[in-house]
């Protein structure tokens, strides 16, 4: 299913932080992991991932470091910082409240099942 771009737009930082919560990753690895976890539902334009990562790095939420991958290619890995972990928790909670609120509104509208 294709999503409206604006739906995912505000949540990409949350998704990226979430992807890093279980280990350090480089950009392409994150794209693959996002596709796997979302069952290819999210089609993030891959070029826009890097500005987002760099913004998170500037904000101190992630830290980047170069590392040679098992294939021998040097890559820039990203890891979650303590600040990033706290931000992930806050954003997760924010998302939970938001999605519950949206669901509550939708339930109240009582659209007939298709």
């Amino acid at each position: 299913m294709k999503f409206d771009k604006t739906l995912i737009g505000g949540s990409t930082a949350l998704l990226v932080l979430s992807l890093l919560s279980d280990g350090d990753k480089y950009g392409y690895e994150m794209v693959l992991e996002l596709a796997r976890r979302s069952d290819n539902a999210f089609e993030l334009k891959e070029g826009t991932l890097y500005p987002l990562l760099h913004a998170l790095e500037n904000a101190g939420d992630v830290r980047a470091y170069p590392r040679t991958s098992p294939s021998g290619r040097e890559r820039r890995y990203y890891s979650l910082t303590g600040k990033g972990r706290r931000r992930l928790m806050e954003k997760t909670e924010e998302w939970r409240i938001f999605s519950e609120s949206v669901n509550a509104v939708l339930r109240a509208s009582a659209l007939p099942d298709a």
Partner: protein
Amino acid sequence: MESIRFRRWCSLAVSGIRYKPDRERVYAELYGHMEDRYEALTEAGVPPEEAESRVLAAMGSAEETSNILERVHRPYWAWALWAARCLLLIALLLALLSVPRWIMAQDIVKLPEGQRETFALPYREAQGIRDTRTFYAKPMSRASSDGYRFILTCAAGRHIECDDPDWIEEHDEFYLAVEVFNLRPWAQYSGILREFCAVDSLGNVYGAFNRTPHGGDTPLLSGNAYRTGLCTVTWILSLRNFRSQGAEWIELRYDQGGRDIRLCVDLKGGGTE
């Protein structure tokens, strides 16, 4: 793998990043990503040309990426770099401008052989100078005030006899070199030089250049400043209408704004040549 289309995409995407090291790093990161994606596709059996197109499609618009990267990579470092370059350029220009002055000052003030500092007096074009006797005073007086450090490094005078009808037939000239150190560049050429006066042990007063009418036979302290170091300016002062023959000392004074700066020259402590 080498792809001109990938390179073009990456170049455009990073074109908004002004700080070169960042630009190169992001370029490599984006290109590496595209290589990874391309290899995955070709290994899955996608023909190279189609794989290339799919990678570019997955990356999205290079212009859009460029715009976001430009916003994220705020050019603080680039500004700092430009500011540093401008400062360096200004410093170089100042250094270049100060070289001729420095050379002039070096011509005027000759540093010593042995203990005695000698003073090559400013040469004045005149016909018929037939006799000069130069005498050296004993300076090395120091003073400090408001971030300035003054060191009286040289003092010398000469007696001139001259056949030139346009010149005073016989007179004395007296010069002082004062090294003025100040860490603040904007304060190094301040008008303080022209606010100094000089007095001698006989009671003669050589008025400050800024506060004394010029001309006639009024005793007057005047001079010029020459840059002789990064934080150092050397003043070459002359006592016009010298009348301190026989005095034991001459003192440079600055007493404006509650300050009291004094630099003393011992006229008896030098020698003659």
